[in-house]
């Protein structure tokens, strides 16, 4: 998979440096600029996968960068960063067409997960998903553990795919139902529990665990 091209717009040198190192360690190609004007120029000339954009920038601010980007009808996903947590900022950013919003200081894992989620939303589905020894081939809709094929029902497959797409994220049972039943079929929360307990048996030796979040949902973790 090609390295994801991330444009990082942040005027604080220490934060920009730390962010770019961390993102690079997650196999991303990071281009750092320190002000809004430069960011606007980069976005006009090159195609980036995602923009991580600070709102409080010298020159034109983050809001203006987003406004200009969307005015050019560009669909590049934008994750706003801000030191202010005023709700007006949040609402304004999202109204202007930003896709997500994080308040500094953020948990690094959260930032990486959100960036990946934004890119995934925009990009075609990858051919394969994997965690631990488990691999899901999204074309053939087959699951493998180190080359051995696992037999899964359609619904079990859907649940496992959704969990794997959001590895390390807590997913509520309702979220899982909404994700695997896009056409409004009825499914009880109990049914999700049944699928998960079957999946646990089938992927017991895959080096991953489906952890139960009591009363809420599940989280797929690497062991």
């Amino acid at each position, binding site marked *: 998979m090609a390295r994801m091209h991330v444009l990082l717009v942040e005027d604080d040198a220490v*934060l920009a440096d730390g962010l770019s*190192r961390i993102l690079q360690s997650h196999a991303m190609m990071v281009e750092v600029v320190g002000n809004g004007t430069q960011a606007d120029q980069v976005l006009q000339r090159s195609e980036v996968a995602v923009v991580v954009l600070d709102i409080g920038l010298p020159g034109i601010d983050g809001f203006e960068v987003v406004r200009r980007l969307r005015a050019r009808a560009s669909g590049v996903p934008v994750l706003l960063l801000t030191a202010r947590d005023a709700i007006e900022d949040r609402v304004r950013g999202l109204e202007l067409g930003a896709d997500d919003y994080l308040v500094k200081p953020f948990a690094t894992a959260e930032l990486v997960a959100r960036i990946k989620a934004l890119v995934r939303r925009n990009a075609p589905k990858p051919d394969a998903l994997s965690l631990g020894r488990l691999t899901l081939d999204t074309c053939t809709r087959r699951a493998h553990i180190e080359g051995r094929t696992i037999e899964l029902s359609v619904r079990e497959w859907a649940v496992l795919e959704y969990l794997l797409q959001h590895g390390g*994220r807590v997913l509520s049972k309702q979220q899982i139902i909404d994700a695997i039943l896009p056409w409004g079929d009825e499914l009880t929360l109990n049914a999700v529990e049944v699928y998960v307990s079957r999946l646990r048996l089938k992927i017991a030796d895959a080096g991953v665990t489906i952890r139960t979040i009591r009363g*809420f949902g599940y989280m797929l973790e690497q062991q």
Partner: protein
Amino acid sequence: MTSIRLRLLKWLIGPILLINLAGASLTYMLAWIPAQLAFDQGLADAVGALASRLHVGSGAASIDLPAEAEAMLRANDIDALYFVVRGSGARVLAGDRDFPVQARNEPGAYESTMLGEPVRVLFRTSRAGDEKVQIGVAKTMRKRLQVRSAIVRALVLLETVFTLALVGLIWFSVTTGLLPLAHMRSNLKNREMGDLAPIDTESVPVELTPVVAAFNELLDKVQAGATAQRDFLADVAHQLRTPLAGFKLQLEWLGARHAGDPESVHSLSLMLLSNERMIRQINQLLALARAEPSHFEKTRLEMLDLARLVEPVVQYFVEEAGKKHIDIGFDLQPVMLAGDSFLLRDLIDNVIDNAVRYTPEHGTVTVRCRPDGAGAVLEIEDSGPGIAPHQRELVFQRFARLDDKSSGTGLGLAIVRDIALAHGATVSIADGPGRAGMTLAVRFGRV
């Protein structure tokens, strides 16, 4: 310290008592003088009656006073009447021979003593022929004294009743007059902490308006000062966020790079810990500034599903609880309430954080929300050490920490209480089920 009430009472009641006293004396005199005159008239009549019976017989003055006439003169059920009619040379023509009182050189009646009893005496000189005759009449003052004491009794009773009624009326009027002050006082006293809204000048009497206006000006200044302070605090916190974020990322990167060196890992993890504490403290200060009751804007209220508000923090707390092997569970039933979503997120964040922070490793924390009557309740149950009943109020105070071991900021539950207050919700702490740990409940009222 001066009291308006005491001053008013002193200046009203004192003079009124004096005036009443003067009035009573005047009334006494007005009642007593005619009575005195009437008595003296009685004496004069008696003297007249005796004088009319004088005549000149055999060259000397004599008096024609039969026994019946004398009895009639003396007839009185209460007072004793003494009289004497003396001719020249102290010759007694009639009456009491032992009438001891000599005539005084006074025109009217006067008081004297007779047989050990006070008497009123009237002497008159009359003439019978050529002889000068002195007629003296004395009457005991029993009836007079009776009348006088009756007058005094009536006056004392009347004046006492009047005075008491007046004092009562004055007391009542002063108290009623000062009622707006008491009203204002109780209004000010019942204000929420940090409520610096001006006093409504419409509801105070004209006399208090200048005072209230001046006080409102002061409140304005205090409000402006508080706002400036809060803005400054928020500004500082915001300014610190970016460097702290950079600091944190650099530490994490360094940690990943030196994962193989236990000494570095140890040192870096300590640095990360204090970095996180700084971040937490700053976020808490910002949350506290937001939670200021005077900052609460009713316009921001919207209908919210409590369960939906809890969901976004589930990921964070599952991770936090995971670090301490705490079994965190949820039971989130959809329930609507009117609130400020931003503040409610702060509230939710702080109640769960509090439970996870104070629950020891391998404990349990359960977050619940559900309808409760017409309102909503958010409950957090933990298996931590709990809080002794007498300390349960204490934990809602700013910077209150029950022990030094934990790493809390001491602001969490103060924020929770401020936000709950702003939403008209109550926060209570009870023993956990099976008396282990505790249950913190935030009860929101009717939607």
